[in-house]
């Protein structure tokens, strides 16, 4: 438990300096890095054909964002399908390992910052695919998320403005001045701690006892650093950050967890600075902290008390199934809370093997919209949507026109906020229902896993519930977690489910698109509409949004919206399973 508190204190300490730097970058202030990187920024603008000070309306901003997302996704799809003809492919993977439905799912997954992986990387993607086709989205999708958050904050803090910034400029500046320097230093820190960085193929060795062991390698560190910093979460290896080459020690694990929250936490402070009142940022930070710490403590306590069934066999009950010795229980549950609070989705332990309550926490974090610091950019804009709902609810309670940051919240803003909340809920619940009940004939190719391409055998699952790894209530949790993770653009999994079949890859791909754009577009619309409004000076009747009351209200809205929407589903999954477990069933 002490490590949770200390970790939180580290995040608390870095929030302000990181926020200050983010502010300088996006406010266009001079930076130390202007000299080494300024030429590249200017060169990029020239190549893009944009002017540095061009300001876009929200529609133009959204148009640029959509076009970039589409084109970069298509490029990745093509590169994945043709990996067999591309270099850096020591294992000789081709399109058999990357069929069309999987390449679609994977391209969407990385473009939307989800990084759901239906495939096992060691058995499916070449070094080139990892390093180029997929990694570029680790940078780009995070930069896009960051840009949207900055655009929303501009919309909220500017007076009577037409534009919300320039999409191209925000993406380029975020990449060059924020991600690049941190990644360049961070990659070497990862290597120093034991993360490989080589283009050599897998190494065959003979163990101490004379057994042959093939050890997968690759350019891991350069991917690992942006995977965490950009809250992407797509692993170089199947076991993700549980793999000793991705996360070699308790120190590496701590470094990773700090990287995941680094920018999301800093953004709360940048938000306050852009508005000219850092307390506005701290109020949001505090709400995120309350939710984060409660979840982390609950999950840790549940895993430490563990599985009572183990006692029958004379085994300690603390739940180490699917956890690594070097991280221990608290190191694993803290990671689970961080990765699902943020929309990262990297895992250092297998959430599928958690106790029901231990696993409920990461699931709830995702269902609540990943606003607990959240993904790079996505966390802040998600929480600001909640803030708009919160002041609306507060306004209803006291019978006053709701205001946030001195601007009146009108019908349009609330409608847009509700579109994003309802699209999320509908995608998660309808797809979970379909996957639980959907029937297909046995051996239907739509739900057949082509194991023969990965050194296993083909399996036809028939009904969509056939792909689960666990029976009963836990199996339902597996399905719910899958669509929550996809729609929430998280990417972690109750990984027992075999999702690499045409129908699952397609459904999950659609869920990821809905989850990304049915939030981003309403957010940009709100930003554009709010930017036009005047800022009214605070009066006696104004509900202060930099206060403890507001923090509590935010927490309340997150919990109530999440709980009301998803309680029936959660009752069928983790809650039933918990009762079964303590009842010894």
């Amino acid at each position, binding site marked *: 438990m002490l*490590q949770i508190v200390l970790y939180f204190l580290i995040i608390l300490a870095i929030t302000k300096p990181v926020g200050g730097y983010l502010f300088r970058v996006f406010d266009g202030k001079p930076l130390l890095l202007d000299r080494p990187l300024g030429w590249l920024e200017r060169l*990029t603008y020239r190549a*893009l*054909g*944009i002017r540095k000070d061009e300001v876009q309306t929200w529609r133009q901003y959204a148009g640029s964002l959509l076009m*970039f997302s589409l084109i*970069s996704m298509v490029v990745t799809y093509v590169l994945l399908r043709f990996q067999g003809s591309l270099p850096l492919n020591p294992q000789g993977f081709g399109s058999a390992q990357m069929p069309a439905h999987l390449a679609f799912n994977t391209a969407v997954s990385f473009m939307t910052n989800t990084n759901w992986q239906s495939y096992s990387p060691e058995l499916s993607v070449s070094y080139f695919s990892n390093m*180029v086709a997929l990694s*570029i989205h680790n*940078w780009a999708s995070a930069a896009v998320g960051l840009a949207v958050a900055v655009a929303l904050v501009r919309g909220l803090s500017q007076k009577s403005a037409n534009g919300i910034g320039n999409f191209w400029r925000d993406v*380029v500046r975020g*990449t060059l001045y924020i991600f*690049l320097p941190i990644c360049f230093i961070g*990659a*070497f820190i990862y*290597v120093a701690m*034991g*993360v*490989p*960085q*080589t283009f050599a193929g897998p*190494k065959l*060795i*003979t*163990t*101490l006892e004379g057994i042959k062991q*093939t*050890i*997968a390698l690759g*350019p891991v*560190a350069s*991917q690992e650093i942006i995977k965490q910093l950009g809250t992407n979460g797509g692993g170089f290896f199947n*076991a993700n950050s*549980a793999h*000793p*080459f991705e996360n*070699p*020690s308790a120190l590496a694990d701590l470094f990773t967890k700090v990287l995941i929250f680094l920018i999301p936490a800093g953004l709360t402070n940048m938000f306050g600075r852009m508005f000219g009142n850092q307390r506005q940022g701290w109020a949001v930070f505090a709400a995120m902290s309350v939710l984060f710490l409660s979840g982390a403590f609950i999950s840790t306590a549940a895993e430490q008390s563990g599985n009572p*069934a183990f006692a029958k*066999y*004379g085994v*300690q009950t603390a*739940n*180490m*199934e*699917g*956890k*690594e*010795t*070097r991280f221990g229980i608290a190191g694993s549950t803290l990671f689970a809370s961080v990765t699902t609070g943020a929309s990262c989705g990297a895992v250092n332990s*297998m959430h*599928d*093997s958690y106790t*029901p309550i231990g696993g409920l926490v990461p699931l709830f974090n995702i269902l609540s919209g990943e606003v607990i610091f959240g993904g790079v950019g996505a966390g802040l804009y998600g929480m600001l949507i909640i803030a708009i709902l919160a002041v609306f609810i507060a306004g209803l309670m006291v019978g006053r026109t709701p205001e946030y940051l001195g601007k009146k919240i009108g019908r349009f803003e609330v409608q847009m906020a509700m579109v994003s909340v309802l699209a999320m809920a509908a995608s998660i619940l309808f797809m979970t229902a379909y996957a639980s009940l959907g029937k297909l004939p046995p051996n239907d190719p739509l739900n057949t896993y082509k194991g023969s391409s990965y050194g296993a055998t083909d399996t036809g699952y028939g009904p969509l519930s056939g792909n689960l790894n*666990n029976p009963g*209530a*836990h*199996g339902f949790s597996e399905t719910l977690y899958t669509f929550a993770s996809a729609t929430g653009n998280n990417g972690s999994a109750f990984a*027992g489910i075999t999702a690499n079949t045409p129908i699952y890859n397609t459904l999950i791909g659609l869920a990821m698109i809905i989850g990304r754009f049915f939030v981003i577009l309403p957010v940009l619309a709100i930003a554009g509409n709010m930017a036009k409004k005047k800022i009214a000076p605070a009066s006696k009747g104004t509900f202060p949004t930099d206060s403890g009351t507001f923090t509590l209200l935010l927490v309340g809205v997150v919990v109530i919206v999440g709980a009301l929407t998803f309680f029936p589903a959660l009752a069928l999954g983790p809650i039933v399973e918990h009762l079964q477990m303590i009842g010894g*069933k």
Partner: protein
Amino acid sequence: MKNIRPALVLTLFFVLLTGFVFPAAVTAIAQSSMSYRANGSFVVQSGKVVGSELIGQTFSGSNYFHSRPSAAGNGYDANNSSGTNLGPTNPKLLVGVEGFEGIQQLAAKYRLENQLSQSQVIPVDAVTRSASGLDPDISVENARLQIPRIARARKISEDSIQAMLAQTIQPRFAGIFGDPSVNVLRLNMLLDKR
């Protein structure tokens, strides 16, 4: 449609900068300054590479410390990392199925191998599979319970093995983060060196 050109150029920008220049630069510098780590931390015994100190391997002889059970391929397949992903109430996890040992069988086997009494509580890491299936470590308690068996097999004193264990224990980082652990390969190499 005026977005098409910048969208293409920006994609190219990411491909060049983050897809090629960045990983190539990191590789070049890492290979020249930290080649042991950058190449996978491979350790050598009597002139032969016997594994990576970060990747667990299977040990079944009674003269070695045993790693945790593994779900990676057929056990410690370092080209196929994986956990079991079995839920806590799944009978397969608890009592196993044909061809897959559950906690019950693993605990009985551990007890038998190490000649432990029925009242001895077994450390949980000894009978559960890790998340990666490649966990290089075991808990200190797990290692301690294996000492008598190894002492008998190697005909050396328990104290000398205890001393090797003591120098292999990796404490919590800063005394707080993670759990104390014992690297099985490093410990077994110490045993062989003696």
